[in-house]
């Protein structure tokens, strides 16, 4: 059996000799390709020393040839030698694979802060954003959204709204006229008349739309802007309903703690008339934001928003509604001003310049 043992020992020694250079493998500072080279060499060794044609494989065939009483012991010797070779290689193999895997991960490490890949999306105009928000609120409150003509007759722009000939509000210095004497509507109140003619009463509508006034553009004026007009006519409608409705939609837009304030005012198409303010959405009516004067309300805690009142009986009569049976409220305000407030836009001319650096700020 000694020959056979010697053969096993020789195979083992040959392996140790070949493997020597990997015995104390230190991969510190080695590159991925170094490690892959070593792995290839180790795999080659594995084939050479454990493959079918290896010296170790040959020794297995000797097991049958040793005498039966020695066969068990010899078998164990062969097994031990093979296990030693396999496990030695496996250890290095594992070390290498771990190194390679780590190196690959390092190599493929991403900069996750680089922006995601997606098409550039655009932005709705701030006026559209605010308009849609408010329309949604009013639709949920049972209002129908309406709009109508932008070029109007004197009748719809003034007369039906109780603004008779010679009234200061009719001054052409405020209103654009066409060469044929038509007016660009100077308020969305025209839709009150058109809508009541179409729908009759009772009615609840919200009319957003463009209006035009002869203002030379500056930081707070533009000759074309947007208004939103609300109208509710029914039996038994009072100013309390006006206050409740205005307060409700402002709360839905700006939060439950929003308060409103109504001040007596004058509009030809309402009587009594009121202007309305709401508590500043930014400073919650305190006038201070982060220890500075709050910007949207200029430190007052209140934001002046629009005009309102009980629909003037002459307006109701103009659409054949009996003011002794029906009453109603109307309110209106500027969408552009609302957008300017919400986004703290300090120059409303930007709204119509369409500079994309401006437009892209709104969501």
């Amino acid at each position, binding site marked *: 059996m000694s020959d056979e043992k010697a053969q096993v020992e020789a195979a083992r020694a040959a392996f140790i000799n070949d493997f020597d250079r990997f015995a104390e493998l230190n991969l510190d500072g080695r590159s991925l390709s170094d490690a892959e080279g070593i792995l290839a060499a180790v795999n080659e060794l594995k084939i050479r020393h454990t493959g079918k044609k290896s010296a170790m494989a040959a020794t297995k065939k000797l097991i049958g040839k040793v005498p039966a009483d020695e066969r068990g012991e010899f078998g164990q010797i062969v097994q031990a030698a093979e296990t030693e070779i396999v496990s030695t290689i496996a250890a290095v193999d594992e070390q290498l694979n771990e190194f390679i895997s780590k190196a690959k991960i390092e190599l493929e490490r991403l900069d996750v802060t680089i*922006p*995601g890949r*997606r*098409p*550039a*999306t*655009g*932005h*709705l*105009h701030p*006026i*559209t954003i605010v308009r849609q928000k408010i329309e949604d609120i009013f*639709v949920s*409150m*049972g*209002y*129908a*959204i*309406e709009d109508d*003509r*932008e*070029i109007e*007759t004197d009748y719809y722009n003034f007369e039906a709204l109780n603004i008779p000939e*010679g009234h*200061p509000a009719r*001054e*052409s210095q405020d209103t*654009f006229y*066409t*060469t*044929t004497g*038509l007016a*660009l509507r100077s308020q969305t109140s025209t839709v009150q008349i058109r809508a009541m003619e179409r729908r009759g009463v009772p009615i609840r509508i919200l009319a957003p739309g*463009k209006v035009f006034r002869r*203002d030379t553009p500056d930081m707070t004026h533009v*000759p074309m802007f947007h208004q939103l007009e609300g109208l509710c006519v*029914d039996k038994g*409608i*009072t*100013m*309390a*309903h006006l206050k409740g409705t205005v307060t*409700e939609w402002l709360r839905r837009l700006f939060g439950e703690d929003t308060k*409103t*304030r*109504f*001040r*007596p*005012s*004058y509009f030809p198409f309402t*009587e*009594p*008339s009121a202007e309305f303010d709401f508590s500043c959405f930014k400073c919650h009516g305190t006038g201070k934001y982060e220890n500075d004067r709050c910007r949207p309300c200029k430190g007052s805690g209140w934001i002046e928003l629009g005009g309102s009142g009980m629909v003037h009986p002459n307006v109701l009569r103009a659409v054949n509604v009996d003011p002794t049976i029906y009453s109603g409220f109307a309110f209106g305000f500027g969408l552009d001003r609302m957008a300017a407030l919400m986004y703290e836009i300090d120059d409303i001319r930007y709204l*119509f*310049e*369409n*500079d*994309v*650096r401006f*437009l892209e700020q709104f969501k």
Partner: protein
Amino acid sequence: MNISYNWLKNLIDIDLSAEDVASELTRVGLAVEGVHPHGDDFVLDIDLTSNRPDCLSHLGVAREIAAITGASVKAPAVSDEPEIPLPMVLAYDVVAINDPELCHRFTARVIKNVKIGPSPAWIVERLEAIGERSINNVADITNYVMHELGQPMHSFDNSMLVIADAEKPAAIGGIMGGLDSSITEATTNVLLEVAFFKRENIRQTSRKLGLTTEASYRFERGVDIDNLSRASDRAAELICEFAGGEMAEFIDVYPTKAEPRYAVSYDLPRAVERLTGLKVAGSECLRILNSLGISQSEEDPAAFTVPSWRYDISIEEDLVEEITRHTGYENIAEELPPAFGAGEYQDTEIRKRRLRRTLIDLGFNEAITYSFIDTKNDERFEPVPGLLDDNADEKFVTLQDSVIEGAVRMRPTLLAGVLDAAKLNFNQQHKDLKLFEIGKTFATKSGEDGLPTERELLSLVITGGDANAGRSMTQRELDFYDAKGAVEAALEAVGLSNLVFSGGDVGHLRSGQAATISSNDRVVGSIGRISEELAGDYKFKQPVYVAELDLQSLLHEETSPALYRSLPKYPAIVRDVSFLVNRTVTFDDIRASILSQGRELCRDVSFVDVYEGKGIEANERSLTIRLEYRSDERTLIETEVDAVHAE
């Protein structure tokens, strides 16, 4: 308007501080914009609504305070010296009311032996407090009385008035006096004119002359016709006292008597409750009205006499407002009206929202441009079909004037606006651009009602490179097909997927890169690269593509409902084919030609790629298409397909 707190205190007892007066006045509708200290006085800056000319004086504001606090207004002292009437002959030399329609009442007072000089300090101070400059004692007194009692008045040099040029008016009644007859240091005899002119007339004259004065401002809003002689007396008395004059002749010509005015209410508390929900006792209603000078008629308890200074009260609702504002709007409850019904959007709004959203997702920013544009755009753009009325003499709607230079045309196209926006962005070095606008365009309409056509369009502009979000490098140059794709995607989002694009010339588009867009055999718009000429006008150096569609018509077209088709049971086989074709042959031609052969197995023809340029004749292009073969009965085998394909 500036009101002096100390001056008010001469007219009414006030226990409130200036700040409290300010907040109380604001509460009842006289909006105090600011309270500014001035020496030992405070000046209240009141922003009056145009219906309250009666408050354009300290007396008027004092009346409101009376209604707030319950104190009474003390009339400024006026002597009860007997008036010396002018002899009638002389009177009509001085005062001739040619048109009693325009001048309802006219008073004139002669004050003799006046010595023109500086005003006493207290008058100078009062006037200064409210921002008025001192001129001389007589002018200052007339100004003082106007601010005190609200009655504009004018002092003339009586001797100069006589010799005044008959051709030249001595004054523009109610607006300003003439230079020839104005008070100078040499003046000794003063004629004090206090009159009432028709409001509308003053307004017209003032507008015509482009001249607004403190006097015209008050006259056109309405002064108190019953207050004329009192104001004249007050001024004359002050002149006598502080300019050493002697009261002389007085004349009061009052041809157009103001009719007493009434507002009728049968049940004030009920009217107040009906309109405001407030419960105000009848006695309180009367107290408020009385304190404002509105009294219940003794003969008819439903009639309320409107004082001569209030032009804004004529109906019950007006009385309700007076009672309500003095009761306090803050006392009105906040209630929601009873439930009504379901709300609704405008019929096209939901689809427009989808359309907007699709364009946003495709990278478009929404623009809003002015509805009035320059007339030079008339020839530049070809409006969408059907907008202009061929029978109208003037095609376009034009404004009488504009506040933006040249912009008098109501836009027949949105393109001028969006291209202006493109230019603005180019100037900001923003060259990769996708913009759209949805808005109305306008055109004259012939026919009876005469109101112009208003039509909502969708326009878009696309230029530069295709950008990814957050990445500075553009992927490739945008072209016609990007614009076309955007239009297709946007309209598909609103249920319109059978648009037909046909090559054809459009005024503002470059020939060969222009198409008309049709839906249901009707041309609804155009798309393409803007013409060289237009690009030159805008000084654009890069290709710019635009589209404009009649959105209003499109959104009223019927959409085809989605219908399920059973899924193919057997796989398809595709074959790609490249054709070298003359440029006049279109993809649509080839597709239609293949499909028209009616090969049962050939299910679809789709576009793969196009190539033109190097290696291909200038009048040709290489078009690669994909043919899809499929059977509903079996899995096709290659040879079968090859056979059909070969045909």
